[in-house]
């Protein structure tokens, strides 16, 4: 890793923080919980890190425990992602008062 890469990551981090602050300004009370739940589903993005970690089995020695830990991370992150988006969808449907048959 060279320093430019790290600086790049930090730049990305700082700008995203600023963007996040500006993105949401006024939210009606009705949407507080769905917004929280939807944002929560997005924070399940750690699934990406978990996937990379689960793709182990390196040459020259085993990394079984590490793989299992990453596997659990994949499962938990996936619950967070799928459950989060699905539950947000349900809340929004109810708020809209439109009861669509079935899910999705």
């Amino acid at each position, binding site marked *: 890793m060279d320093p430019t890469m790290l600086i790049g990551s930090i730049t990305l*981090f700082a700008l995203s923080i600023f963007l996040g602050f500006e993105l949401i*300004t006024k939210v009606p009370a009705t949407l507080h*919980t769905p917004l929280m739940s939807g944002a929560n589903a997005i924070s399940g993005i750690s699934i990406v890190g978990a996937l990379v970690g*689960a*793709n182990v089995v390196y040459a020259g020695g085993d990394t079984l425990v590490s793989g299992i830990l990453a596997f659990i991370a994949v499962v*938990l992150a996936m619950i967070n992602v799928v459950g989060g988006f699905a539950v947000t969808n349900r809340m929004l449907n109810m708020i809209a008062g439109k009861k669509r048959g079935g899910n999705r």
Partner: protein
Amino acid sequence: MINDEWVAIGYLFSAALFIFGLKNLSHPRTAPRGNQLGAMGMLVAVLTTVLQMELGEGIVGWALIGGGLLLGGAIGWIMAVRVEMTGMPELVALFNGFGGAASALVALSESWKYIENESLELPTGLEIQVVVVAAGLSALVGWMTLTGSLLAMLKLKGGVEIFGKWIRVPTWGPEWLNPIKALLFLGALVLIVLAIDDPTNTDYLYAIIGISCLLGILLVLPIGGADMPVVVSLLNSLSGIAAAFTGFIFSNSVLIVAGSLVGASGLILTFIMCKAMNRQLKDVLFKSFGGSDKEQVTRTKVGSDADEVAMMIDGAQKIIIVPGYGMAVSQCQHQVKEFADLVSEKFDTEVKYAIHPVAGRMPGHMNVLLAEANVPYEQLIEMSEINPEMPEADIALVIGANDTCNPAARTGEGPLAGMPIIDADAARTVVIIKRSLSVGYAGVDNDLFFMDKTMMLFGDGKKMMNELNSAVKEL
């Protein structure tokens, strides 16, 4: 062969979808689309990652990856579809805890790789510093989010059932605990710095995990139940930050962008929610109200019956319904709607609903339930707009609400101090449907129950609404 440029473009696309998703989620009209955009962003991110691994070095852990995706997806889906409306806040807290734990586990997995396989060469120089610090911070925030969210979930439920016994989750946190929390936090940071020179030392690892778990519990333990939505929102922000730190381990752009977006917007949402409750975040977090020593109810009030109340309703021109958590628990929103239809047909009464921003256990809880019962949106009036109308109301019908219309909030003392309330006491007659005179979530006695113009209907919301409806029909 997929090259890094295409991966970067895929992640950029995914990040853009997250940004538009969050933006759309904050407006009522576009919110459903916002949620779909977010889900699409996630799909793009996962597909990009899987393709990159398969077409790059090749996926060797298909069983782990495919199995994990399917298993987690199925569990999440079933939980989301099965949950009752009343249980949704708890579920969001639980999901949030899982998200934090996932980030922490990714960090742990990355560290453990080098611990269990000594032939793997540790990175050197700048890289090892970045990886250790990022993994350490990810663990610190992630484990904290997990234990904090689990405790918040239990607090939202009110307690746990252990061997058939209902145990209330305590609220405890004296002032002297705050410096200890700060010390623990600093201690964890010191351990992370120490770990740079000795990354495979498991003592550091366990100590950081232990401290983080403890911090999560200590953070949430002193906070009263009524403030729990704010805490869950803050924990949501933290789980985003944890994901962003995880991104630094792999220099992964989408992890960093999405994580910090959620971290920042979650924090803003937390402030917005605090404002709706007229609270300061630092008061919520660090000012404990010294436990939930419940005041003994020594006063009594004679209960009324449905017929008596129905007679009061006869001829009422304006009725304002004040729903609360009790309505959610007894699932009586359909009976409430039936009541409103009945009186507006029979007596030509004007019916409105007073919606407190934090009625129930999450903001918007009442809107969701009443919308389910097909109550017209125009009849749901926000607190600040309904309060001036209260003195004109013949009857304020309070259904299972307590803290949100407790005049004690106006006194400036106690756990409810400063919280805006619905002025139900301004109505000519107050009818309250409640199971008992006991204190509400915040643990404060409610003077409203004992006023002369108040009629109490003691019982389950659904049962009492049914009785009231048949009494009105018989008039």
